[in-house]
């Protein structure tokens, strides 16, 4: 299946803003994608699946868009 991953803030550094992953697995979750991208789950503040709040354990379908944001907390 093909999953679009959109990265924000410093997740883009050394990667890209947008990635298309071709994955030949039956069950794919955002957790699997995080592992593949070398991003630790605790580094993620907002995880959206198709623009809605999602979980690291949700099963993804072909064509899903996963957006990942790190926490921004300064002032």
């Amino acid at each position, binding site marked *: 299946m093909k999953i679009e991953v959109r990265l*924000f*803030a*410093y997740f*883009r550094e050394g990667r890209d*803003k947008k990635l298309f992953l071709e994955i030949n697995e039956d069950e794919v979750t955002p957790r699997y994608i995080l592992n593949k991208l070398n991003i630790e789950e*605790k580094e993620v*503040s*907002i995880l*959206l699946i198709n*623009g*809605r*709040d999602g979980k690291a354990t949700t099963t993804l379908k072909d064509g899903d868009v996963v*957006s990942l*944001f*790190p*926490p*921004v*907390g*300064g*002032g």
Partner: protein
Amino acid sequence: MGRYERNIKTLSVEENERLKDFYVCVIGCGGIGGYVIEMLGRLGIGHITAVDGDNFCESNLNRQILSSNKTIGKNKAETARDRMKDVNDLIEVIAVPEFINKDNILDIIKGHHVVIDALDNIETRLLLQDACEKAGIPLVHGAIGGWYGQVTSIFPGDRTLDVIYEDKDQKGIEKTLGNPSFTPALIASIQVSEAVKILINKKDTLRNKMLVVDLLSQDFEVINL
């Protein structure tokens, strides 16, 4: 009046006239908060409460508009009040030189029309969201880190920060990326525009949405929350 002449047309005469009756509470008078107070005060918001228990130190000088060689060691909220006396003596700025906590926050924000989140850590932001919800006051959130920033407007019941910061113990990216001079000014501007729109009932705020800013790519994106 000459002072507010250039507000007009951006705001109607009636809207401009109403600004003097609004109470806005700014929590944090550092990078974001200093600019927020500057803009609220120049615009003519009649009553501003500036809240910060911290004093200026040298590492604030790269970005915090109220910090200078003259104000190092001085309380940030009191410095904000003193500056506004010079900038606009038609408005009232009350300084609260305290850090917010669960015991004082409700008393501090009571009676305000809008609260601005200009804090520098996630845990206190969540405390502020709880308090604003309890007090029934809209909260304009802004946060920065490195080249990045974000803004959203939160009304009682929205609990948007619960989505943004699911883990309250998470460390923000600013801890590793620092904060340059240009992100706080930008995020503060957007927060002030949101606050004004909430005060004068303009549509199209960032409610249930978040503006995500990436100045390294010059990407401005609004996501739905």
